């Protein structure tokens, strides 16, 4: 799981697993929050590259991290989002809080 978290500068990239449900969201929350405490992070990048399933527990996990980031004046971004994941993110309204990219955005050299 550790390999799925990468810090470059003030960017934290989280490579999400194939399925983001209640079970693995809890683990992701714990790991992400520990890294946020120990490092000076201004942006969290959620990489959906290999994710094909997410339910509302995943939305809750992202929203929670978004709140942490906002509190510190940072941002949250989603990259490599497929059609299904975009639908879930749109339905939940969370797309208003974050930039969503189908591929990798310009700052991809940081991922």
């Amino acid at each position, binding site marked *: 799981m550790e390999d799925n978290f990468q810090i470059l500068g003030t960017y934290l990239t989280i490579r999400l697993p194939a*399925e983001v*449900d*209640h*079970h693995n969201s*809890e683990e992701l*929350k714990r790991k992400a929050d520990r890294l946020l405490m120990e490092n000076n992070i201004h942006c969290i990048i959620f990489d959906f590259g290999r994710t*094909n*399933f997410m*339910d*509302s*527990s995943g*939305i*809750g*996990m992202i*929203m*929670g991290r978004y709140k942490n980031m906002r509190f510190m004046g940072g941002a949250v971004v989603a990259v490599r989002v497929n059609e*299904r994941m975009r639908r*879930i993110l749109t*339905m*939940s309204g969370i797309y208003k809080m974050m930039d969503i990219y189908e591929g990798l955005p310009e700052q991809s050299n940081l991922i």
Partner: protein
Amino acid sequence: MNTENEMKLEFDSRSCNEGFARVSVAAFLTQLNPTLEEVADVKTALSEAVTNAIIHGYEGKVEKITITCRIFDQTIEIEVKDHGVGIEDIRRAMEPLFTTKQDCERAGMGFSFMEAFMDTLEVVSSPGKGTSVKMTKKILHTDNRYER
């Protein structure tokens, strides 16, 4: 295909069983020849119902969750049942963004997702009497969609 078919699953309310429940129901669903999107819809709705039973119904205690799936008229009917604490105000619980577990970072979207991804949704519950969530989805005939 118009035959009826039924299956029943019973498992512990542990979060590691969420994936197992999704895969099992998806496997049962394949006999209706669903599209990938229909499979994803059913998996998401089911995941919401099972997660609700684990987090809210049993509040983390390990008890039994039962899933009954029935197939008829090209439709899948799924019932997810727990014997947990039950729901006091079902209408309120079904409102988008409403959650009783704010501190656990719950999105409050569970029932909204079930409604959005399934055709019908029926919730029967009362405090102390457990919860039953019954939902159906018609799997449309899309013969040869991937064979052309």
